[in-house]
């Protein structure tokens, strides 16, 4: 009631990626783990893994910067389905 948050630090629970229109899909075969996407992502939604990267879809807004910057075209933006 009254949009009150009764405990501190609860913003972590707020998944802000739900209004994404396009979703980045990583092709693990093409990814060379250069981490340019990790640097460029404005929302820190790229997750580093040992061989390639993954996307944290809870927070990714689908801006497409990662796909644009990827030198290997390993990231494709795919339209979200309802």
């Amino acid at each position, binding site marked *: *009631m*009254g*949009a*009150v*948050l*009764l*405990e*501190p630090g*609860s913003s972590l629970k707020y998944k*802000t990626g*739900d*209004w994404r229109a396009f979703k980045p899909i990583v092709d693990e075969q093409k990814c060379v783990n250069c981490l340019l996407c990790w640097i460029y992502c404005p929302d820190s939604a790229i997750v580093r893994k040992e061989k390639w990267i993954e996307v944290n879809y809870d927070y990714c807004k689908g801006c497409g910067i990662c796909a644009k910057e990827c030198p290997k075209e390993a990231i494709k933006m795919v339209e979200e389905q309802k």
Partner: protein
Amino acid sequence: MPQRSHQNGGGAKVTIVGMTGDEAVAYAVKQSRVDVVAAYPITPQTIMVERFSRYVADGEVQTEYVCVESEHSAMSACVGASLTGARVFTATSSQGLALMHEMLYIASGLRCPIVMGVANRALSAPINIHGDHSDMMASRDCGWVQIYVENAQEAYDWTILAFKIAEDRDVQLPVSVNLDGFILSHSMEGVDVLEDMTVNQFLQARKPLFTLDPDKPITVGALCMPDYYFEFKRQQVEAMRNVSRVLDTVNKEYGRITGRNYGVLETFGMEDAEAAILCLGSTAGTARNVAHKLREHGKKVGVIKLWLYRPFPAEDVIAASKHLKALAVLDRAVSFGAPYGALCSDVVSALHTLQERPQVFNIVYGLGGRDIEPSDIEFVLEEALKTAETGVVKEPVTFLGVRE
């Protein structure tokens, strides 16, 4: 102040005190043991906060009185204070209410049970300090409960009642107590005042559902996106729906103590009336007098006065007026470009689902404090009787007493 004591209908000891409407509100606020008052003076509300600041200066109350630089700041301070769990009061009029406008929505959205005295006054331009309902009608959708009173006694009683309704667990909404500028705010009447002890027993300390507390931090006013915002607005709708029920319970309890029984509306002569006036505030007194006179001549007329305007008591208005043949709704404000004044629009939409309903027409009157006289009311009731007879509305909206 001149005063004398007696026992009232409910058995509580009361003192009759000569007070203006504004003073009656200030006295009720004093007895309601308010924790914080943040206000900015504006005619014709000024006496409310001026009188209350004297109580503070004289040590008669333990209230934190915040002097602010504008009404926008007044309401902002009230919201902050209310969120700490404090009982909060403010007052304003006209331009002051307009300046508060965005904060009114914050107060209701954050579910702050603030009580505000509004001495209703016309809005500029041209600048005018006298009474009409333009100010509060412009804020009718702001999520505040709105009470309109007829005299200084009602101003006193409803201020106390307002705290109890606002702070009820099922309401938790701000309430405005509206009194006609000058006509009520500055006219002195005898007011039956309860003893402090009686008010204390009736109005217990506020029990907030959550509080701003440095030791146990919470967040209020956080960003709320499309995924949740709608639900909070829906909760406010639900709280508004609870108001009528809570208001009835609170009024019954008050009636037992004081012998003065309030509700969402008051009727006069409606048991057999064929034509009636529906209005707010002090005009109801004049309307009742005129209706009484006409009834003595065998004319079947009546008066419906709404105490509660928001939430609009649609079911009660239907119950009170469905047997009528004609109903004149009096608006003391213009809704520019709308088919009717705000009050009439609400009445028409409340009645439109009925198969058999009265012919409704709208009278816009009293803008900028222009007097409404008994002869004006008589004219309206005679028009209503004619409409009842013919079944035809001659003029959907009439601007009463204007040069045109």
